[in-house]
């Protein structure tokens, strides 16, 4: 069933890509509706998997087919408390993003095919239980995203897309070398994640383990991205079409943080513990730097892009706290890892929504410059409410999803790295300031003459944003819905 959730959109992508007679507006719309329905199937399958989820702490609902047995490679997919929420969030965000109206530039079939393909690949990455398979999905997602940015982006899209591709591919090669080092050290040799977690092949390998750690770290840190490996992110986000930005921020960045937990913390916990404090420092730098640079932005999408750097900093901080050796602080560590994992989900929904909205703002106003807008509250209620709720969620307002996650991360960090928690608080304050200022500039004050006829969000967009907003509120008031599943992974993990 999980296999179908991965392969169906990939195979459907081929069919959609070959679709003919979609050059008319009607044809495009119909094809988009078909693609949306296809995209919803994995979501339903994952919700079924969620309902069957037992919370045993290990991998469940595992499906295995040998692929290259000579090398110990298998098609092996399954879920645990870490991958299930992320995969479900991914499927949901893709349904919304694929349904979202976008300027197809006369190539609707190719656009929708790439999005469906990327959906299958992204879900596959979170469900993969085999490092080889994980890497296949990791690399292929880059290619699909490259074309999405390059062909449907605006501004200097070709250049931004190339920068994105070169950077993240440069990160994927140390990742590949590190995976191979882990593989070669295992006995018998295997790419199977569960087996590698059991074997801990590089435990006590000293310097060699550090080198391998560095390979994984480079791959994940570029993707996450952590300062100073973040420079590919702002141009990619700004020039990508709205739905692709949403996927990039909501899904692709999570691949980095997911890798930290799934591989580094699980397969090399000793090395991770040794390096957890420097990692936490780097995370705090990301938090503060991301927030301060976001504060200086006048471009809406750049602003949101830099808040992503800031939010991913919280996630890494939570992971570092959970991974360090801190006797007696298991409760704090559990809190931090719960929070970090929830933050991955929450950030996907919140920032995904914000990027979708900024795409709509661009199609209406033709610019991302915040200063160009003003007083939109009177004119566009739907747009205002959607942006406001998501912005408040992003800055961590209680009652919304972001708060639950960030609160837990901070509470956990205070127990383990109190000083770093204090410094990181700057990030919260600055983010609050910049979002409030952005909301004020865009939606309050007098409405400039030229926006008098600015249309409000359409039905599809309202539905899409409404769905995300509803989930952000739901997780905010009833976090246990997701946290129970997450904790089934976290509790045994922290207990060791």
């Amino acid at each position: 069933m999980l296999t179908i959730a991965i392969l169906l959109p990939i195979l459907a992508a081929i069919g959609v890509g070959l679709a003919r007679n979609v050059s008319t507006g009607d044809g495009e719309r119909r094809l988009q509706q078909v693609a949306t329905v296809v995209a919803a199937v994995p979501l339903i399958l994952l919700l079924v998997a969620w309902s069957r989820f037992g919370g045993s702490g290990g991998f469940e609902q595992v499906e295995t087919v040998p692929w290259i047995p000579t090398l110990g490679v298998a098609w092996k997919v399954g879920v645990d408390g870490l991958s299930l929420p992320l995969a479900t969030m991914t499927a949901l965000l893709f349904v919304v993003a694929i349904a979202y109206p976008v300027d197809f530039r006369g190539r609707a079939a190719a656009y929708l095919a790439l999005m469906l393909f990327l959906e299958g690949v992204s879900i596959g990455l979170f469900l993969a239980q085999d490092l080889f398979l994980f890497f296949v999905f990791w690399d292929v997602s880059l290619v699909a995203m490259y074309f999405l940015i390059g062909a449907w982006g605006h501004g200097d899209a070709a250049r931004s897309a190339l920068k994105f591709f070169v950077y993240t591919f440069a990160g994927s090669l140390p990742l590949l070398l590190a995976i191979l080092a882990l593989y070669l050290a295992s006995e018998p040799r295997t790419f199977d994640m569960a087996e590698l977690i059991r074997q801990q092949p590089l435990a006590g390998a000293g310097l060699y383990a550090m080198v391998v750690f560095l390979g994984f770290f480079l791959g994940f840190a570029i993707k996450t991205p952590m300062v100073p490996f973040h420079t590919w992110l702002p141009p990619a986000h700004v020039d990508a079409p709205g739905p692709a930005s949403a996927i990039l921020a909501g899904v692709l960045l999570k691949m980095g943080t997911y890798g930290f937990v799934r591989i580094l913390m699980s397969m090399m916990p000793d090395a991770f513990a040794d390096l957890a404090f420097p990692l936490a420092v780097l995370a705090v730098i990301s938090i503060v730097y991301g927030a301060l640079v976001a504060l200086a932005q006048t471009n809406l999408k750049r602003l949101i892009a830099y808040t992503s750097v800031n939010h991913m900093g919280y996630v890494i901080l939570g992971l570092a706290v959970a991974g360090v050796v801190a006797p007696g602080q298991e409760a704090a560590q559990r809190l931090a890892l719960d929070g970090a994992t929830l933050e991955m989900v929450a950030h996907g929904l919140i920032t995904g929504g914000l990027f979708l909205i900024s795409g709509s703002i661009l199609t209406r106003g033709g610019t991302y410059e915040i200063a160009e807008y003003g007083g939109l509250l009177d004119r566009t209620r739907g747009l205002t409410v959607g942006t406001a709720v998501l912005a408040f969620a992003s800055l961590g307002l209680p009652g919304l999803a972001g708060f639950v996650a960030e609160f837990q991360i901070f509470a956990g960090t205070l127990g383990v790295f109190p000083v770093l928690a204090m410094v990181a608080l700057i990030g919260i304050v600055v983010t609050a300031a910049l979002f409030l200022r952005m909301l004020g500039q865009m939606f309050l004050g007098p409405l400039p003459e030229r926006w008098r006829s600015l249309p409000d969000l359409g039905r599809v967009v309202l539905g899409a944003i409404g769905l995300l907003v509803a989930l952000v509120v739901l997780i905010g008031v009833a976090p246990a819905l997701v946290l129970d599943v997450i904790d089934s992974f976290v509790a045994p993990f922290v207990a060791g």
Partner: protein
Amino acid sequence: MAMGTDMAVMVGDVIPELALLVGAVIVLLLALTLPASRQAWVAWPTLIALLVAGIATVALFGGEERLTFAGTYAVDAAALWAKLFILAGTAAVVLLSVPWFRKDPRHGEYYALLLLAALGAVLMAGAADLKEVLVAILLSSVTGFVLAGFHRRSSLSSEAAIKFYLVGALANTTALMGAALLFGLAGSTTLEGIGQGLAAGGEGARPALLLGLVLLLGVLGFKLGAVPVHSWVPDVAQGAPAPIAGFITAIPKVGAFLFLARLMLVLPEGVDWQPLIAVAATATMTLGNLASLWQDDVRRILGWSAVSQTGYGLMAIVGLGASSLALPALLYFLAAYVAGNIAAFGVIVELRGRTNLADFDGAGRVRPALLGSLAISFLSFIGVPPLAGFVAKLLLFAVAIEVGYLWLAVVAAINTVISIVYYVRVLAPAYLRTPAGPIATLARPAAVATYLATAAVVLVGLLAEPFVAAFSGRPLLP
């Protein structure tokens, strides 16, 4: 055992080679007798000869791995697989050539040369003797010189042939001296004999051994397009007839890599050849990639990329003997590389030799299937999963890491990132820009060959298991 049956057994070992030779003779005779308008017909006997050789090769699988013809020729799984790559690649080149040479009034002998060039590569793949390999290399080179210059009126083609010839003549003659030195040291020209002779020779002969080895490596490097005897590759890729450019940059490499592997394995303990190969690999991949960045001609880009690919392949040689993955990695790399290279040059052929980078604007929208093939072959060269090139790179990296050459794997990884830039320089305008006008293509056989090669790139990657399993656990003779 009677002399007669002995001879019959030996002949039975080389039926694929005989098929190519007889095929070449028949093709030549037909070309001489057929009128100018029917010259393209000889493509049929050419394909039949390749098919017969292929069937004969498959029939040899499963037999005992052995040396034949007095220890000069190896019949082992690696050689048989290499032959299949060579024969399949050559067959694809024949299909590419038919429409390409349609307007050439006398090209029948071209196919005879092509068969002999394939024979040269096949002989290299099985060679287990210095004299034998030198003849094989000469056969491959001499036919290659003529084929590269086959467009007699094209100055680019002639220039490519001359450069190819000059570098080749130098490498071939010095290799003779190298072979003589090794013969003098070991008292034998068979690899088996050389291995025993050198092992018994002791330390005193080391300088002469190294000199002989370097001279021999010179000619193998020439066939592989490895630094520092690589300079002909971009010129041939650009100037030779496009199908032949695809042939020469890939097919002889298969044979040369196999003999290089055999030669390295018989060197005695204490001769540290691995660092030498590792340095050559580094120089080859780095120079190939850096030089490729500055080209504005797609065929030159492919030529330099062929140089860099040789560098990656040499990583497998570094691990020979120490890593059980080395031979599977080498064979898998060769399969992926031949398929990718034929697909890429096939696209160029089918686009009627279109090679100026600026002429590719929007080509992806006008010719989606062809440019899709180009994209797949390039992504395979980069090593994007699940294409064949990815599994090849994964195996090559694994070999380097396993034998303690992590730095070489890191160098290869950095090179891979650099290579993205020039592959994307071709692909990005093709997909992201608007087309300038219609794009003419050649007749169907070339498209068929291109799509078959592309399918091979995808399928060999997706269905890697049978290949990896078949390449694993077999010894390389002698």
